[in-house]
């Protein structure tokens, strides 16, 4: 009785076997390139996020379970590039934050992934909005302001997309609060 169940389904089992094997072969040839793509996506941004750092000199590091990049140039370490994510207006937003070595000042921000409303929310990826973060203090909480930013830690919200702008600032604050201690500790350890 048992074998006739399998007898009927031998085609499915055979297909399962050879398709599984075929996919594994495809996986091993392509997985290298995919991992490289993901890495390149971040490493390409390092020179822009931390001025002066070069792609080749920067190294990857692992600090309390999170992947972190040391933005370096031949002379020495200039700063860090850390990644963070959170809930935006419509869906998750993934960011890259560049800070100086002592994690006192934010040197640059880049939006890796977002699905905000086109035409409104997705203007957070434009230079105009992101350049405001360069030079703002890392210790103090970033605040979104609707009417002209005066203090260093105030950021002009994009008209019509306050929730997205607030989300970006909130993610940066959380990421910095979480990572600041460990980054400085790693630097002192050297």
């Amino acid at each position, binding site marked *: 009785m048992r074998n006739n169940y399998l007898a*009927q389904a031998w085609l499915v089992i055979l297909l399962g076997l050879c398709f599984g094997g075929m996919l594994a072969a495809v996986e091993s040839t392509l997985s290298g390139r*995919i991992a490289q793509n993901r890495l390149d996506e971040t490493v390409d941004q390092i020179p822009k996020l931390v001025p002066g750092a070069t792609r080749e000199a920067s190294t990857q590091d692992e600090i309390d379970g999170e992947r972190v990049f040391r933005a370096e140039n031949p002379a020495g370490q200039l700063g860090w590039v850390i990644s963070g994510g959170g809930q935006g207006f419509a869906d998750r937003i993934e960011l890259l934050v560049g800070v100086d070595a002592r994690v006192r000042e934010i040197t640059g921000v880049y939006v890796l992934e977002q699905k905000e409303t086109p035409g409104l929310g997705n203007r957070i990826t434009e230079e105009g909005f992101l350049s405001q973060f360069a030079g703002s203090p890392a210790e103090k909480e970033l605040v979104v302001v609707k009417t002209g930013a005066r203090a260093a830690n105030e950021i002009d919200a994009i008209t019509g997309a306050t929730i997205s702008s607030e989300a970006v600032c909130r993610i940066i604050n959380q990421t910095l609060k979480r990572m600041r201690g460990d980054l400085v500790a790693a630097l002192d350890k050297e």
Partner: protein
Amino acid sequence: MTEAATAAGPVDSGPTAGERFINGILPENPIYRQLLGMCPTLAVTGGMQPAMTMTGGVLFVLVCANVIVSLIRGLLKPHLRILVFTLTIATFVTIVDRFLAAYMYQMSKQLGPYVPLIIVNCLIISRCEVCASKQSVRVALADAVGQSIGFGLALASIASVREILGSGTWFGMRVLPAAWPEWVIMVLPPGAFITLGLLMGLVNWYVDRRQPSRR
């Protein structure tokens, strides 16, 4: 053409390979006439590039799946055939997904979950069931290529309307003058529904006008 069809094993009841190829493009266009494969149509036609990548993916998967299914059509058991179809389609879709992630990483991120959704695309499973599991390899291949070209044309028509009106560009190149206020709704979900609805009405009107309503 005809003698090849008759020699194709069981009596070839359906149209020959050439007819199936032409049918797939306009008369039996998968989206406008058969209403199949609507999920990706609405989702990826925000711009021309994602639409054309999706067409390429569907073409590759449909051709390979049709060929494999028509090769093993003799061994299919009636109650397990859906399982076999989905297995073959899923394998080729994974290959397309990995290929996109490796060589066109930006596009793969932009398409997101809609590449694996090709597996449950009603178009591919229905072509496998209707055509591939009964016809010879040549007919199945012609049918697959015809259907995917039809699918591509339909996607292109929707995507160009939505991209030109929604973001003023076509394939990324600026088409409308910068002063033109972009209709953001076109890139959002409601725009997709309304554009497809109106285009479908246009096609029905055009087809009815050409031949009087034959009953």
